Every structure is written in C-alpha cells, then in structure tokens.
C-alpha cells in the first residue's frame, strides 16, 4: 500500500519532465535544426524570464494565495530597468528594492486583514501597470549593458538558458524543499493553523513568500529586458497566466502547499516550447492559435495516459 503511494507520487513528480521530453522529441523530429546549441539557445531564451515569473507565482501559491499582478509587475520592473537602472543605477536599485518591499507588504495586508489574495493582487496589477505607464509612457528606454551581456552569454557546450534554468531550479528547490525554514513555509500552506500552533509567525511566513515573489518578479523583469534590450509597460501582461499555468503544469496545487520548484521551471519550459513547436508545424494562419491549444492538450493528454497506465 505504501509502495502504491510512493510510486504514484514519484510518477506524478516525473510528469512535468516527461511532457517536456515528449515535446522536445516532437520538435527535434519536425525541425532537426533545433537540435543544436544555436537552436536550443534561440528556442529557450525567452523561457528564462517566464521560469522566473513562474517561480514567483509558485511562492505565492505555496501559501494558498494567487498572484494576478505578477505580469504587470514584471512589466514595471522592465520599465524601471530600461530607464532608471540605466540612467541612474542607484535610484533604479532603490526603486526595485521598494517594489519588493511593496510586495512583502501586500502579503502582510492579505494576512492581517484576511483578504482574498485574488482581489488584492488584481488591484495591484492596475497599480503596477499605472506606475509603469508613468515611468515609461511609450515603449523604449535602454537596458543596462550588463544585463544584455548576461542574457547573451555564450557558455561552452550547454546553451545559457539551460544552464540558467537548471541553476535557478536547483537553488530554489534546495531552499524551499530541503532547508529547515523552507519546511515551515510549505507547512504554512499545508495547515496554517498547525504551524501557528507550533509557535511560528504566519505573518512572517506570508511576508517572506510574497517578498520572494517580488524578488523573482524583479529577476524576471531584468532578465527580460536583457533579452529585449528595451522596456514596454505591456511587455509581460500575459506572464500572469503563463506563470499560473506553468506552476500548475509543474505539479503545484492551488491549495495545500504542494509545490515543486523544479516542476515549475519545467512547466515554464513546456509552455514556451509549445509555442515553438507550433511554428515548426506550419498550420494555416486561421488555425495557428487553435493549434497552440491543441498542442497543450495533447501534451497533457499524454501525461494523463501515462499516469493512468502506470497507476494500474
């Protein structure tokens, strides 16, 4: 009976990797050119900021909340990065730190007043977008050189996006899943009452998790302008949805503190690659958008098949 649980659990945690592998295989089959340093580099570059945003979302999901503001927040960071950080680095850094602080305060407000996070973050999404439009009324600005250099780094053998994804995933995995305080943070999602009864501050846990979301939102925005080289208030509007979808694809559950950092990163990669695969397929323009949906469904259906087959 315990073996049953164990196997099912292990299988479930292997699913994100499996769907990614299936998708990659399909891509390599349709476009062998993609199977190269150059190809992987091109296909996966934009997965890095998405993976970071997905991790930010995952932190919030860990404590049973949902962040509808991460997309506009990444957009705001991109705008600050392409303006103040470039022109007045000290002020830029200060603003970014302030943003992270606001994120932590958002967590505190949600906890102290017992508010539904969806509404608070929805409200904040307008606030971030508004500030971004004020910071950078029309798209433009210039990303700091070091960010551009970092994001176009040429690592020997393995493309940079893969190295970055692996490093990010492992660091967060270690911090959240294996450190002793990480346990408390996840426990805060699993049974907040029990954690509070053991004498831990739930306020602190919420603030830390939202603060971390802010940190990863900032990292996401900065890596994004490293790629695009300039900012735009709307640049990451869709990141909200991607980040939720990526986290869920990666095995996170909306309640109960069940999350997986490695899974989240893999989920983000899967989402990005689903877009690439579509382009290689050459679907008629009318059905291109639909094909994107169909690919997602196929990948997930395959997962369902595998997990059901093995569960027997």
């Amino acid at each position, binding site marked *: *009976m*315990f073996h049953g*649980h164990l196997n099912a*659990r292990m299988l479930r945690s292997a699913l994100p990797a499996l769907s990614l592998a299936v998708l990659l295989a399909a891509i390599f089959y349709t476009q062998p050119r993609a199977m190269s340093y150059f190809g992987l580099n091109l296909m996966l570059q934009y997965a890095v900021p998405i993976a970071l945003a997905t991790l930010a979302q995952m932190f919030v999901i860990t404590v049973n909340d949902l962040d509808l503001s991460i997309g506009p927040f990444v957009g705001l960071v991109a705008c600050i990065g392409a303006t103040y950080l470039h022109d007045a680095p000290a002020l830029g850094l200060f603003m970014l730190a302030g943003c992270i602080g606001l994120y932590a305060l958002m967590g505190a407000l949600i906890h102290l007043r017992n508010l539904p996070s969806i509404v608070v973050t929805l409200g904040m999404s307008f606030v971030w977008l508004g500030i971004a439009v004020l910071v950078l009324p029309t798209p433009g600005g210039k990303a700091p050189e070091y960010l551009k250099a970092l994001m176009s780094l040429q690592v020997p053998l393995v493309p940079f996006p893969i190295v970055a994804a692996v490093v990010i995933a492992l660091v967060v995995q270690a911090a959240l899943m*294996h450190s*002793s*305080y990480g*346990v*408390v943070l*996840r*426990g805060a*999602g*699993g*049974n907040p*009452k*029990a*954690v*509070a*009864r*053991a*004498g*831990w501050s739930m306020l602190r846990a919420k603030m830390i998790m939202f603060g971390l979301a802010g940190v990863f939102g900032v990292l996401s925005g900065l890596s994004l302008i490293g790629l695009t080289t300039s900012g735009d208030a709307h640049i990451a509007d869709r990141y909200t949805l991607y980040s939720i979808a990526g986290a869920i694809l990666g095995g996170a559950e909306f309640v*109960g*503190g*069940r999350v997986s950092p490695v899974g989240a990163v893999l989920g983000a990669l899967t989402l990005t690659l689903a877009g690439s695969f579509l382009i290689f397929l050459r679907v008629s323009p009318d059905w291109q958008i639909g094909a994107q949906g169909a690919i997602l469904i196929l990948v997930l259906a395959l997962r369902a098949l595998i997990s059901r087959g093995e569960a027997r």
Partner: protein
Amino acid sequence: MTRPPQQIVDLTDVAMSFGAVRALAGVDLAVAAGECVGLVGHNGAGKSTLVNVLAGGLIPDRGRIKVAGEDITHRFNVRTAHQHGIRCVFQELSLCPNLTVAENARIFHARLRGMSWKRRAAALIGAKLDEIFPGHDILPHDIIGDLSIGRRQMVEIARAFTVTVEPLDLVILDEPTSSLDAVTAGQLLAFVRRQVAMGTSVILISHMLGEVLGTCSRIVVMKDGGVVAAKPAAAFNRESLVSAMGTVVEVQGVAPRPEIAGSRQGEVMVEARSRRQLNDRKLVAHRGEVIGLAGLAGHGQTRMLLQIFAAAGKGDLFAEVRGPVAIIAGDRQTDGIFPLWSIGQNVTIRSLRGMVRRLLIDSDQERAMAATWQQKMRIKTPNMDDNILTLSGGNQQKALFARALGSDAGIVLMDDPMRGVDVGTKIEVYDRIRQEAAGGRTFLWYTTEIDELKYCDHVYVFRNGIIVDDIPRDELTEARVLSASFHEAA
C-alpha cells in the same frame, strides 16, 4: 484536599464564551508533576476548550493562569506554553498534510535546524514512534496526507513526546485513542503510564471510560462548562463516573437481538469481495442485519466500505449492492463535514432530493428535519443555523449520524463512526441502530472498539486488506477477534 507540592499548571476561575455559548463557566484545574489527570464529560462539556486554553491557543475571557507557580496570565500563548514544557495533541489533528512525518517534527521544534536537520528530525520522531507504538509501519519520509487517520494520530502523539531543548512537563491528549484500534490504544496507554512514572504529567481526555479509569491517577468530570467532580481515580468506578457526568443511562450487557440473530437469512442487500481476496470469502449482509467489520485499524475496512459505496447504484465486479447507501464518515474533517455550512445544512444534505417541491427545496421541511434530528441525536447547540464548526467534536459526529440515519438509505455504512462520541450518546445510538435494523435497515459497521462488535449480528475480521475470519454473533469473543487480527485465522 492535599495538593502535591509542585504545580505545573494552575488555572483559576477560567471562563470562556463563544457568542451565546458559554463553553467554560469558571473552571479551576491544577495539575501536579507526575500526575495523570483524566478529563471526562459529555460532548460539548468544554473539555477541548479547556485544553485549548491550557495550551495557549485560546485566550479566556476571565481567569488566572499560573505555570510552575508563576502567574503568566497576560503573556500566555502557544509559544510560552511550549517554552514551559506544555504540549498538546488537539482533537482535530494539527499536522501539515503536505509534509513528511519528519518535516512535521521539524515544524514542532524551532531548534531542529542546521545542516543535518532532516536526519535528526527523522531519528527523533522514528525513535519516539518505536518507543510508543512498537511494530508500527510508519516511515519518517512518509507524507502525512498519504497516511490513514489512525497513523496520523500516532504521528501526532509521538511528536508531542519528542524532546529537543525545551522541557517536557505536561502533555495534553485530547481524545488520542479515537482513531486507534484497541491494540494501538493499549500501547499508548502503557506508554503514558511509563511516562507518568518518570515524572511527566499527562492530561487524558477520552470517552472510553475504561481507559481513563485504568490509566489516570485523578479524574476531573466536566459538565456544561464547569467541573462537577474531581477525585482520585480510585474513588470512581464506571457507574459512578457515568452518573457524575450526568448521563442517566443503564449501562448493561447487550443481548443478541432475538429476531434475526444467527439466522443469516432474508434478502441479500450487500455482497462484496475484497480485491485482494484470493479465496472465495466474501462479505454478505442481509436485510436488517448489523454487520461488523473488525480488525486492526488500516487493514482495509474503510476501503471495503468505500468500494461498496462506489458500487451502489451501478454495481461492479467485486461488489453487488441493493438499494441506496449512506455512509457515516469517521474522519469527519476530510470525509464528512461541510465547513462553511450550518449544522442544519450539514444534516439535511443527504435527504434534500426528497424535499424538492416544484423544483425548489422546501425550506420548512428542511428546517423540520434539522430540528427533529437535533432532538433525536441531542446535538448540543443553541441554533441549528449556526456554523457546524461551532460544535464540539463529538457533536459534529452526531450531526453526521443524523445525516445518514435521516436519509432514505436502506444500507448504512459506518466508518468507525463513534470517534469522539460520549458514552451517553453512544448508548442511545446503539439503541437507535438496533431499532432501525429491526425496521429493515442494514448496517455495515467498521469499528475499532471491540465492545461495539457485541451489537453486531455477524463480524468479519480484516487483515492486510482481506477478510480472514467471519464470526457469527454467538461465537464472538474478544480473543477470537484479536487472534484473527494478528494471524491468518482459524
């Protein structure tokens, strides 16, 4: 009354109200070092509220709290309670289901950190589990959510007794045996006796009066938020304890019901086989029978009940079920209650279909059913429209009883349903089950209390997911159930 020299805690005149409900009405309670205090009382008497205050989880409206002789009423909270060596195993379990056994131990101990915390936490909880429940099959890296409720309870108990740097002076156990089978419960009580002998104090809350009488040195009886008796255990026996609790019921031996006993005839309502069963042994229930499912906890009884429940109405390869089925959950938090609803809504949900008049549910009829069953089950609440969570644990369980018994189901499955139900109510419920069975209802009753098997017409003993023995009522003995539970049986 002479008081032992060192008081670990001393509560004076503690009062606590939830809105209109007066849960504690000025309670005095002192616990000395090395003492085992039994706390008994009917459902809703205020026991859990009292221990919540003791553990720092609730701030009372009034009263004084002294710990180790020092008055700390105004800075008493969970943290200070922990620092002063007071631990509590709450009635509604407080483990994090998404974490492993070892990780839950870590949550409990702020000091379990640093490089090798995982190994140390695993060793700590593993050792304590071995000490209390020898022969258990829980691994430190098992995830709590995967464990059955009995095993979860074992983990939580073991965790409360682990020690890192903070002292361990008093452990409060709020109905620790409610989800444990007789053998495991015995292991726990033996451990409590050893622990008390070593100087740790324990407060034990239980509705199994035998446990309290056999383990505790002093017994405090609560009724309606106040203490009505507090005497050495030796001064009580079962009858005097029951009458002190204010329950006027005859506690007597149970005679087999003459109508059906031993006959095993009539229409077959349920026929089910365990998926793992290799021989052709199967569970059969005739109309009007009370069938017992026995054995140690976690050996597939719940699974069998769920299999029958799932097969109802459509049937499957392993189970054939005739007629509508209702189930009374034992694990009320995950299987039973709807936490956002009122008590009334929780009771009526299973019967609403029959109350639909011109597409709409008849609210009068709904209210009437709630009122009837409040009275029948004696659910202790000022208002059935109050939220279900305002009920004490045992009263929540009564609401679940009402849900099933009030329904149209001809077959009622009971998944160890008496968890946390007080003696008085239990006896009424036993009576009700017998009446209903006489009226043609069929009961399948999984119980971890061997005493309850006496109310059954036929008993199946489970081990490792299969039926290892079936015992007619007249052959039923405790020894036979136990031996079947442990060995591939007779």
